């Protein structure tokens, strides 16, 4: 059965007015900047409330377009979850926010992405301090093959945030405490970071990310490689971190998105279909595509 697609406003209007020949409409709409989908819900926030603003973002891998005209705001001190089927572009979009896509040669990003009003793709902006302000935690825990201490201290050291051992010690302790790992490792800070369990490694990566005091933390499926208990601990941690940081999390688990986030964005084949309060998305979403995805009617 065909799923009704939300059409461009103008097209909708034209059809209701009885124009059956869509060719005419296409000519008219080609000149507008809005391409296919108009996002349902509330993707944008007020300037006061948003930490990062994205407008008309397109991402191309060579000739193939991965993200279509996405406009989305990430609010201050909120957890924004991004859900959607595999290959829908949510990870790609996440990686745009800290310019990690720069490492991929064939990737091209268009549109505007701003952090606190500053365009992060500005030619004059150095990507290195940007990544200190927008941190990232990856899907598979990837601590450095160094000691736990050095793992957490690396970021502050290279950015010059600490100048002596005492300061470094303080930052390491604070970060590990915030990540809920301090009690478990305080006696063995010299042990290699790779010797911890999966859940502990991921918390170490989170500690490492927050040691540089970022404003935004991006998390790309942080729990997908972890067991349920480790996952629960990380979710608890995300909830606590929200007080200090803004968090954008990509997740495959809708239940996880429902548990940790305040706003949820649903991506489908590169389009941003719906963004709204998490409670609303998961009890009564507005768009049929969203409904189908969250109820498991994928086929």
């Amino acid at each position, binding site marked *: *059965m065909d799923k009704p697609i939300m059409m461009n406003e103008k097209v909708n209007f034209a059809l209701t007015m009885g124009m059956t020949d869509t060719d005419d409409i296409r000519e008219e709409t080609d000149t507008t900047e809005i391409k296919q989908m108009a996002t349902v819900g509330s993707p944008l926030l007020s300037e006061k409330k948003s930490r990062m603003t994205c407008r008309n973002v397109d991402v191309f891998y060579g000739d193939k377009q991965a993200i279509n005209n996405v406009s989305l705001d990430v609010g201050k001190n909120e957890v924004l979850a991004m859900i959607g089927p595999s290959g829908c572009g949510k990870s790609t979009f996440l990686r745009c926010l800290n310019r990690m896509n720069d490492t991929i040669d064939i990737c091209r990003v268009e549109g505007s992405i701003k952090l606190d009003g500053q365009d992060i793709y500005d030619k004059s902006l150095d990507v290195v301090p940007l990544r200190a302000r927008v941190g990232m935690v990856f899907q598979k825990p990837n601590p450095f093959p160094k000691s736990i201490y050095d793992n957490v201290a690396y970021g502050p050291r290279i950015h010059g945030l600490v100048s002596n051992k005492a300061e470094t010690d303080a930052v390491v302790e604070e970060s590990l405490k915030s990540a809920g790992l301090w009690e478990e490792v305080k006696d063995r800070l010299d042990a290699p970071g790779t010797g911890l369990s999966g859940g502990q490694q991921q918390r170490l990566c989170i500690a490492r990310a927050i040691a540089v005091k970022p404003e935004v933390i991006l998390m790309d499926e942080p729990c997908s490689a972890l067991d349920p208990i480790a996952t629960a601990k990380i979710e608890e941690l995300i909830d606590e971190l929200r007080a200090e940081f803004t968090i954008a999390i990509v997740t495959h688990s*809708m*239940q996880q998105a*429902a548990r940790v986030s305040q706003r949820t964005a649903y991506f489908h084949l590169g389009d941003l279909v719906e963004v709204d309060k998490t409670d609303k998305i*998961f*009890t*009564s*979403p507005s768009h049929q595509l*969203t*409904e189908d995805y*969250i*109820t*498991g*009617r*994928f*086929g």
Partner: protein
Amino acid sequence: MSTEHNHTFKRFDKDLDKLRSQVERMGNEVSRQIDLLLGHLQAGKMTDYDDVIENDMTINGLENKANRTVIKLLAKRSPMGRDLRVIIGFSRMITDLERVGDELVTMAKSLADAKELPDCFDGNNTITLAEMLVMAMNLLDRALLAAQNEDLETAQDMLQKSLTKQSSYKIKLAEMIECVKKHHAESSNGFHSALQTHSLQRVCDHICNICQHTVFMVTGEDVNHEED
């Protein structure tokens, strides 16, 4: 929009259908309960109401089964969106149906002990208990059908017309109560009549709840109508 099938998990659809049919059966049993009562009334035999009690036990058994299905669905499927509303909606309806069944048993017991019916033949107003029961049965059937079909319009229509104070059921019930007050207040039967009218009131409330649950299933809104 009716709930489509074609979950990726085929079992999910099967489980949902199972819940649906269990609720349908429960509804049928409750309808039958009313029918049994009517039968007794018409035959004039109110002392022997074992069949009503037995039927209520069937209804209780169905309630337990349906509740277990709900628990299984919630635990296994972590339902969201429409699925979640449908399951919660049916879960609430199960409770309401079971209560209706209880009310009918109360009524049956009361009728067994009562010396006379609360039927009213007062001038223009002729209201019999049987009549009220028939109306209730019709309302119940309509509400349950709307629930099975997720028929929002019918449910809203019922809430706005058939189940309000202005509805014929409520008006007739009000008249019956007036009648009972006037004629039966003195007699020792007043207690039973009051009980029976109260049961009629409660049955209407539960049917109203069922319609509200239907609205919730379809729209996600919680609708509370004013209590009398």
